[in-house]
Every structure is written in C-alpha cells, then in structure tokens.
C-alpha cells in the first residue's frame, strides 16, 4: 500500500497557503454576497502568516499543520479562525509521531478534523457551511479505499466530492452563521467556507499525490 513521508511533507501547507492567498479576492467576493465580505481577507491573513513561519524550516506535515492551526486559532478569530484552527490542530495531532502516512492514517486525520469542527460548531451537511465540502470528501475517500483503489486513485474522488459539495451549497439555504439571518435570500450563492475548504482539500490531495511512494 502506498504512503508518503510525514517528515518532508510540510511544504504541502505552503502550497495550500499559496492557493488561499491567490484566492483572497475571490473568497471575499463570494462572502460579500451573503456575509460581510472578509472571508478572503482573513483567510489570506492567517494562511499567509503561517506560511511565513513555516517557510525554509523543512518542517514535517504535522509540524506545519500545527503551526497553521495555532496561527488560525490564536490570531484570526471570527468563525473561520477557530473552525479551521481546530481542524488543522486535530490533523496535526493525528499525524504527530507518524513516520509514513498511509490511507488509514490519512482518513483518521480527516475524520479527526471534522470531529473537531463539530465539537465547537453545530453545522451538519446541508447547513451551507464548510462541512458540505469536507464531510462528503472524507466519505468519498473512505469508499474508494474500501473498494480497493490505491491511495493516489482514492484522492481523486476526494477532490471531486469536495468540489461537488462546494457546488451543492449554491442551492442551499444557510442554516448557521451570519448568512443564516438571510433565510431564503442566501440561496443561489456559493458558501465561502465550503469554497475555501474545497481549495484546502485539493491542495492537500495534490500534495499527497506528488509525494506517494510504494
């Protein structure tokens, strides 16, 4: 079964941060339609700050994720700071001390992140939040592995399900967070959190695929 080394994979977080910073205006623009338009600004600030602290230090994936989780949790605030903060802190905790990340560890990491998010927020699938991208992505990955697909192959349905989950938020009515105050008026617009979550998951999947060894 293929796997990748934890110790040399910290740069995955840098690539992820680049993607978030690249999408700063786009994320704020979607957020502005039903939120207050600062999602891209806050995400780029947090991921950019974490990237500064990770760059050039050859960190492991778990160390880089821990740094990112800490920055988000202690310096960003809002709703996304604690939610993504706890997700990356949980990711890091599962990977801590692991030498080779195999599909089982990768899946455990994702589940732990989702559990963390649900321990502080109360969002379920269908509430028009980042959970709409994250939860089906995990299920798709688990299902592909259970069907006997390779690690690399199983990451494809993960990315596809995250994107489909993101797109599903367009037709949803927000049930939680500031946009929930809009009721029906929140329909027809992507959720900014689900959009950033799909970006994060794709960066994570591509980073893993590029490092897999048999």
């Amino acid at each position, binding site marked *: 079964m293929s796997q990748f080394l934890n110790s040399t994979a910290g740069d995955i977080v840098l690539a992820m941060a680049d993607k978030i910073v690249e999408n700063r205006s786009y994320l704020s623009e979607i957020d502005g339609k039903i939120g207050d338009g*600062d999602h891209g600004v806050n995400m780029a600030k947090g991921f950019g700050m974490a990237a500064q602290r990770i760059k050039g230090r050859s960190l492991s994936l778990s160390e880089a994720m821990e740094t990112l989780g800490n920055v988000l949790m202690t310096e960003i605030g809002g709703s996304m700071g604690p939610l993504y903060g706890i997700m990356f802190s949980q990711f890091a905790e599962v990977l801590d001390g692991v030498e080779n990340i195999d599909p089982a560890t990768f899946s455990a990491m994702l589940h732990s992140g989702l559990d963390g998010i649900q321990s502080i927020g109360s969002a379920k699938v269908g509430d028009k939040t980042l959970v709409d991208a994250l939860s089906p992505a995990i299920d798709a990955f688990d299902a592909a592995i259970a069907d006997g697909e390779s690690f690399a192959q199983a990451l494809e349905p993960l990315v596809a399900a995250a994107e489909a989950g993101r797109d599903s938020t367009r037709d949803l009515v927000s049930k939680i967070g500031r946009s929930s105050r809009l009721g029906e008026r929140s329909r027809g617009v992507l959720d900014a959190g689900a959009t950033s979550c799909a970006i994060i998951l794709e960066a994570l999947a591509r980073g893993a695929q590029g490092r897999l060894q048999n």
Partner: protein
Amino acid sequence: MQRFINDPDQVVEDTVKGFVRAHADIVRLADNPRVVVAKTAPVAGKVGVITGGGSGHEPAFIGYTGKNLLDAVAVGELFSSPTAKSFHDAIKAADGGRGVVCLYGNYAGDNMNVKMATKLAAKDGIAVATVVANDDVCSAGPSERDKRRGVAGEIFMWKCGGAKASEGASLEQVRATAQRAIDNCRSVGIGLGPCTLPAVGHPNFSIEPDTMEVGIGHHGEPGVRVEPLKRAAEVARDMCGIVLDDHDLAAGTEVAVLVSGLGATPLNELYILNHTIAEEIEARGLTIHRTYVGNYFTSLEMVGATLTVMALDDELKRLLELEVHSPAMR
C-alpha cells in the same frame, strides 16, 4: 472612501492605540494588544466581568471597561469575533479569584471562541460562567428567542452584571443577575444607510434612498421589512411597537430606555426620536426611570438608530444607578 484611516488592515490596532491614549486614566492594554483591561482590574475577591466582540461598534465594547463595569474586553477585527486566545487573556486579566463571567452577544464566532476560551481557562483553574445576549427582537421569532442576536441591550447586561459583581456577589449570582437583565431587554434597529469595512472598500448591502430597513442588525443583517422612510414620529412609534409588543409588560412597570445612533446619525435626530418614544412608552402605562440617548453602540458609519427598553425591578434599578467610571458611561 471619505474615512480617516492609515491602513485598511490596521484599523483595529490604530483604534485601540488611540483609545488607550485617550483614556489612560481608566484603561490599560494587556500584554495581548487585543485585550483592554480596566486599571482597577483584577479586584481581589471580586467576580471578574468581561465581554468581547468585533470592532467597529465603538464605544462598544471597549468603552465600557472601567470601575463597576467591565474588567476586561477582548477585541476582534472589524465585525469579527476576537480570538479564543484574546477571550482567554481577558478572562485571566479579570480574574480576582472568584471566577469570571463572560457577557457577550449571540454570534457564531463569539459562541465558538468563548467556548474554547472557557476550556482554556478551566485548565488555569478559573471558573467561567457565560450569559449570551439575545435582545434583538427582529432577528428571530418569539419561539426562537435563543437564536436572537445580542445588540445594545448588552450595555444594560454589562451595567447590571458589573454592578452586581462590585457588590461582592458570587459568580452564580452575577451570572443570574446579568441573565435577568438581558431577559428584561428588547431592542430594535432601523437602518437608513449602509456601512463599509475599509478592507473591503464598498458597502456590503444597500438601502435605497427614501427607504428604511426595519429590524436591521448591527452588521447590516437584513431586517424584517424595507419600507418607505416615514416621519420620525412614525418611525419612533414603529420602534416602540416592535419592542413593546414583544415585551408584554404590565402597566406601571418601570423601564430604562436606550436610544443609540448607529454611527452616522446626528445626535439631534436621536433626540427627535426619543421625544416620541417617551410619549409612546408612557401612553402604554409604563414609567420611564432613566433614559440614555447617544452613540452607545454603533456600526461603523451606518445611518440609523436602535431602541432598547429594559424592564426594571428594585434590584436592577439599584444596579443601574451604581456609579461607574468608564470611557463610554460615567
């Protein structure tokens, strides 16, 4: 944007720095520059009283730091919850050994960050109790009061909770009193013009000329209806109707009234509203014990006003009257 800013990303830092300079006799900064602390805090043997919230509502939240009011305040980005760390640091700064009560609004980010800060404080051995304000009538129906947002009624919650703590009450007593204070509050907001986050650069919502948004939230959350802008007296009567119909107070009840501007409405217009508000409240057989009119809880440069009515009992009246020394209320 016709605004006094240096850097759109440094608005909060610059605000807090200037605030602390202006009120150095009352407040100081904690080691964490996102925590404002009363110079009197922590008071040994007193329950600490804190809040926290997004910036852009000045003088809320920081302006209510001071003697017999808030011991510490966690400061967030504009319209964005403070970090769990800042709430945690505010709790630590306020702790005088008898626990800390955190009195805050009902927003998703605040709920999560306070929850995490409470866990962190538990590890330090500090007991934390919380009260979540939900005075904004139009933000959810009467059957879903727990979903309503906290708005200007939070000021009465801080005032009564802070005074109760200064009287030497226990953590549970302070919590219960602050809870009763906010349970006795109802608020409504009327928006006449939007506001702009400097880093975003354009208003996030619009209010058409000659219209008003009834029930608008403190960040421009949509209200229950948009209708043609009416004469001030009619607007004031609508505000009273929304607040008092939800409140259902017995005739003879004494109340405190708070009319706050949302940032860009001149003070004289608040007085114009208050005249009719007072008439209307008295016409319903209620007695106005005390009135506050001013920019007590704003939303950047939003045009509009909020009305808060708190029903009083003997204890709440006594707590409201206790002298305070804070930048926003003296």
